[in-house]
C-alpha cells in the first residue's frame, strides 16, 4: 500500500517506470493474481520481480521502506545491472572463491525465498569452508560491515533455529555467541535465541530461563528481552516473581507514543515521507489489532475467573467491532460465549454466517472448522467450511492434514482417509509432506500401513536433503506406532548417524524410548 502511495503513484517515478519496463501487476486474492504468485513461487508482499523477455529471473526486491528516492535507486540499479542476481551468479562462476560475492549471492537467495533457504545455506557453508578464519572479505550488515564468515555462521545458525521439526536447534547460534562476543550481529543473535526460548517446548525449560536471564543482563535497557522472559514465565507458570519484576521494567514500551514522537520529529525536519512511513495505515492497523488482542485477552482472563463478566463481554464485543473479519477474535468470542453457556451468541459471532463471506480464506475456514469440530457442535457448518477450504487450496498439505484432523474429530474417519489417505501419497513427492503424513497418522494410531508407506517413500526421495535425519526419525516414529520395534530401532539409529550434531540429544532420547519398548516386550 505504502509502495503504491509513495512510489508508483508519484509522477516523479512514473515516467521512468513506463519507459524502461513492461509493467505487470499480480494482486493477491484475485484468481489470475494468485496463479501468478504460484507460478513464480512468491509468498510475501510487496515483492518486485524483474524478468527478461526469455522468462529468466534477473533480480528482485522484497519489501518497501521509505524514502521513495532510496527505493528508486534500487530499481535503477536493477536496470543498470548493479549487483543483480544475474550479474552475481555469473561473477561467482568466474570467481568461485570470492567470499564477498558469495555472501551477496546468498543474501539474494534468502531474499527470494526466506522460508526455503537451502540454496543460501549451501553458499554460506561454502564461505565458511573457503575462509574459516574470516579474513578474506567483508559484507554489509545493516549500516555495519562484518566478515563474510561471521555473517555466514550467523545465517546458518538462524536457519537451524528456524528449521522444521527435529532439525530445529539453538546450539549453532549459541556457539556463534560464544565465538564472536564482540560481534556487530551479537544483539540479533541474542534476540533470535530469546524469541526461540520464550516459546520453546518443555525440554528446553531450564536452559531457557538461564539464557533469558543472560540476555536481559546483557541488554538491560531493551524491553523486548524482558518481554521474552515474561512470556516464558507465563507459559511455564514458573519464576512468577521474577516475571513480574521483568514486566515492571517494561513499562516504557509504549509503541504508540514512541511513534508519535518519531512522526512529529520527521514532520519538524520536513521529511513527510518518513513521517508517513512511521504513522502509516499499516501502523494503525497494527495498533487496532493489538488493542483487539488486549481486549479479547482481558475478556478471556475474566471469563476464566468467572468474575467481572459484564465488562469482559463488552470488551469482547469491542474486539470484534475492531476486527470484524478476523477469525481469531471471532473464535475467541465464540469460546467466551460457550463458556458462559450462551450457544446462540457464540453462533451469532462465529456461526454459519461467518463462512458465507464473499471471499472466504482457507485459513479462516480451517480455524472455524477446527473450533466447532473440537466443541462437537455446529458440525454440519464446520464440515462445509472445511470442504470450502479444501476447494480453495486443494494441493496444500497443511489444509489436507487439518481437514483429516477435523473429520476425525467428527468421527468421520472414512472422509478423513478420502482426503488425506493412500490416494494422497500416490500424488505426493515432497519428502517433508510425506513424512508429515506419516507422523500425522502415527499420532492418530490409525491408517498405519499407509503411514509407513509414506514415511518410507520420504526417505527414498531425499538422498541429498539436509532433512534426511528428520525423515528417518519420522520413519522410526511410524514404526514405533505400528509396533515394529526392531525396524524403529534401525531407523532411529540411521537418524542419529545422519544427524549433523544439532539434534543428537533428541534422537538419543527417542532411541532410548524404543529400546525401553523392546525390553518391555521381551519381559512379557
Amino acid at each position, binding site marked *: 500500500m505504502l509502495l503504491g502511495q509513495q512510489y508508483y503513484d508519484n509522477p516523479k517515478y512514473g515516467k521512468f517506470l*513506463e519507459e524502461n*519496463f*513492461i*509493467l*505487470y*501487476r499480480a494482486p493477491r486474492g484475485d484468481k489470475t493474481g494468485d496463479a501468478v504468485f504460484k507460478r513464480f513461487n512468491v509468498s510475501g508482499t510487496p515483492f518486485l520481480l524483474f*524478468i527478461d523477455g526469455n522468462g529468466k529471473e534477473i533480480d528482485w526486491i522484497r519489501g518497501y521502506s521509505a524514502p521513495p528516492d532510496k527505493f528508486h535507486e534500487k530499481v535503477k540499479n536493477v536496470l543498470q545491472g548493479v549487483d543483480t542476481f544475474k550479474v552475481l551468479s555469473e561473477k561467482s562462476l568466474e570467481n568461485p572463491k570470492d567470499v564477498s560475492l558469495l555472501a551477496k549471492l546468498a543474501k539474494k537467495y534468502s531474499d527470494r525465498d526466506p522460508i526455503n533457504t537451502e540454496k543460501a545455506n549451501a553458499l554460506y557453508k561454502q564461505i565458511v569452508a573457503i575462509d574459516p578464519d574470516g579474513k578474506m572479505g567483508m559484507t554489509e550488515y545493516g549500516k555495519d560491515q562484518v566478515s563474510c564468515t561471521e555473517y555466514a555462521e550467523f545465517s546458518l545458525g538462524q536457519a537451524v533455529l528456524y528449521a522444521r521439526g527435529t532439525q530445529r536447534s539453538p546450539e549453532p547460534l549459541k556457539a556463534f555467541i560464544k565465538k564472536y562476543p564482540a560481534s556487530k550481529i551479537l544483539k540479533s543473535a541474542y534476540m533470535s535465541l530469546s524469541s526461540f526460548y520464550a516459546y520453546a517446548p518443555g525440554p528446553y525449560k531450564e536452559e531457557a530461563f538461564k539464557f533469558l536471564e543472560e540476555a536481559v543482563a546483557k541488554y538491560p535497557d531493551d524491553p523486548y528481552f524482558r518481554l521474552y522472559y515474561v512470556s516464558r514465565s507465563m507459559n511455564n507458570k514458573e519464576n512468577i516473581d521474577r516475571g513480574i519484576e521483568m514486566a515492571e521494567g517494561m513499562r516504557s514500551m509504549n509503541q504508540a507514543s514512541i511513534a508519535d514522537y518519531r512522526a512529529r520529529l520527521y514532520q519538524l525536519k520536513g521529511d513527510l515521507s518518513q513521517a508517513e512511513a512511521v504513522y502509516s495505515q499499516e501502523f494503525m492497523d497494527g495498533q487496532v489489532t493489538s488493542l483487539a488482542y488486549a481486549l479479547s485477552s482481558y475478556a478471556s482472563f475474566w471469563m476464566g475467573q468467572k468474575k467481572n463478566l459484564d465488562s469482559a463481554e463488552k470488551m469482547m464485543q469491542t474486539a470484534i467491532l475492531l476486527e470484524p473479519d478476523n477469525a481469531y477474535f471471532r473464535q475467541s468470542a465464540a469460546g467466551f460465549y460457550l463458556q458462559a453457556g450462551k450457544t446462540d451468541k457464540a453462533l451469532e459471532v462465529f456461526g454459519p454466517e461467518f463462512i458465507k463471506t464473499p471471499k472466504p480464506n482457507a485459513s479462516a475456514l480451517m480455524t472455524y472448522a477446527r473450533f466447532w469440530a473440537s466443541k462437537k457442535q455446529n458440525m454440519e457448518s464446520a464440515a462445509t467450511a472445511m470442504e470450502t477450504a479444501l476447494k480453495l487450496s486443494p494441493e496444500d498439505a497443511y489444509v489436507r492434514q487439518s481437514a483429516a484432523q477435523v473429520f476425525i474429530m467428527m468421527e468421520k474417519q472414512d472422509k478423513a482417509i478420502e482426503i488425506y489417505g493412500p490416494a494422497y501419497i500416490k500424488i505426493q513427492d515432497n519428502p517433508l509432506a510425506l513424512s508429515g503424513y506419516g507422523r500425522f497418522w502415527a499420532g492418530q494410531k490409525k491408517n498405519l500401513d499407509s503411514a509407513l508407506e509414506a514415511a518410507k517413500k520420504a526417505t527414498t526421495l531425499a538422498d541429498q536433503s539436509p532433512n534426511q535425519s528428520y525423515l528417518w526419525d519420522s520413519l522410526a516414529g511410524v514404526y514405533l506406532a505400528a509396533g515394529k520395534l526392531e525396524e524403529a530401532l534401525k531407523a532411529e539409529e540411521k537418524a542419529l548417524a545422519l544427524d549433523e550434531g544439532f539434534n543428537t540429544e533428541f534422537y538419543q532420547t527417542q532411541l532410548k524410548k524404543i529400546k525401553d519398548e523392546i525390553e518391555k516386550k521381551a519381559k512379557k
Partner: protein
Amino acid sequence: MKKAFIFGFVLLLFAALLPAQTWLTGSVDDALAKAKAQGKLLLLDFFASSG
C-alpha cells in the same frame, strides 16, 4: 481567457486523476512476449491490498 483557464485547469485535474503508469494484468506470457518484442525487462509487482 477565462474559458482557456478553466480548460487548462480541467486538463490538469484530469492528468492528476490518471493512473501514473499502465499496468498489465491477465496473461503473464503475453506480457513476457511484449517485453521481448520491446527489449525491456518485465517488472512484476506482487501485492496484497492490505500490504
